[in-house]
């Protein structure tokens, strides 16, 4: 399985965010996106998920499910939490589990040690706990491609460790991860894509 992007151009409004971008991620591989703010890291993730149409170029998931879009085979963890404050932690997970076609709520609660908070309203969570709840969706249903936008922001050391475990599991299963980050994820071998280099080349 391989996700390939060829000669991708992304435009937001009238502005060209990036052009001529090539990348490839294979099964079990982690691609780390680096670059200054506004370079287009988040735009690339949203483009892969299918939320933004590429202005030019081509995106293909070889060996993926034929009837599903790339977005439907991806987990996108962005800055927004997609958590409802008036539902409890467990109810939030239960909704996404049912919506996404059945998932393991208990395992998700354990992935980021949220079990003690399971029956509290999500409105009471701290920023870091909210982030953990958002990330625990990764464990809820298996998806072949993970698109993580600065996943470690707001996480304490323990939770960063938990995230690392989850990511390693995904890679070991033959999944793919594309993550943007400004810090070292500590994930061993990862391919790095540098947006600054892309801009310099042009």
């Amino acid at each position: 399985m391989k996700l390939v992007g060829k000669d991708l151009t992304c435009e937001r409004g009238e502005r060209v965010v990036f052009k001529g971008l090539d990348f490839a991620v294979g099964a079990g591989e982690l691609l780390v996106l680096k670059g200054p703010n506004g370079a287009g890291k988040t735009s690339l993730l949203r483009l892969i998920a299918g939320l933004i149409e590429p202005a030019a170029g081509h995106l293909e998931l070889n060996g993926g499910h034929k009837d599903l879009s790339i977005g439907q085979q991806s987990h996108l963890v962005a800055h927004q939490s997609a958590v409802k404050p008036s539902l409890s932690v467990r109810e939030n997970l239960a909704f996404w589990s049912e919506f996404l076609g059945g998932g393991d709520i208990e395992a998700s609660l354990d992935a980021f040690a949220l079990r003690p908070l399971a029956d509290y309203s999500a409105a009471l969570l701290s920023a870091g706990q909210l982030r953990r709840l958002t990330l625990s969706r990764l464990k809820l249903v298996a998806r072949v491609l993970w698109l993580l936008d600065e996943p470690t922001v707001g996480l304490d050391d323990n939770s960063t460790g938990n995230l690392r475990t989850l990511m390693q599991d995904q890679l070991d299963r033959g999944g793919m991860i594309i993550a943007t980050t400004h810090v070292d994820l500590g994930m061993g071998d990862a391919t790095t894509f540098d947006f600054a280099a892309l801009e310099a080349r042009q």
Partner: protein
Amino acid sequence: MSVLKALIRRDLMLAWRQGGGTGTALGFFLTVVVLLPLGIGPDQALLQRIAPGALWIALLLSVLLSAERIFQPDYDDGSLEQMALGPAPLEMIAIAKAFAHWLSAGLPLAIAAPLLGFLLNLDPALILPLGIAMLIGSLALSLLACLGAAITVGLRRGGMLVSLLILPLYIPALIFGVSASTAGQAGPDITSSSLLILIAIVLTFTVVVPLAAATALRAYLR
């Protein structure tokens, strides 16, 4: 189907627990109906004449009032984006959300209206036709509210715009809704034909609204 069930159940739970849901719609409806006779004065014949129309307008405004919460909270917190990556197309999500809105706002109001009609000296013979017409008509109102909410979801303070955009589309539903409600005064034929046209309006919106709403949502998610 479990996708739609999950979404409808969650939206109902949120409408029940959060402000701006069922409580606000019912409260607004009650306020209008209670204040109207006080503003118009104790002319019972006049009240009886305007009762069906007044109830319909109160229903329409209450539904419109709660339109914003159909998509806005989900857009703001990223839920809508996640739903777009889910197994169901946005068209199905739009129809599920419109239905959930009807269950949480339209349906309770349609049930309450004939009862609150007593405050407006509503002709008892009209209770049944009014109830039926409102039950069906409020579906059209919820569908249009869903369309308006989708079109304005990314705009700050879009509430005003929703009213302006959607109001013209509300007019046919209002005309045939009131006409179907006042059957007892105008003969039985009017009832059935007005009611049938009202049903036709609902069916048309059921097809058109999800397509239009999903197109608008896709544009905003970019």
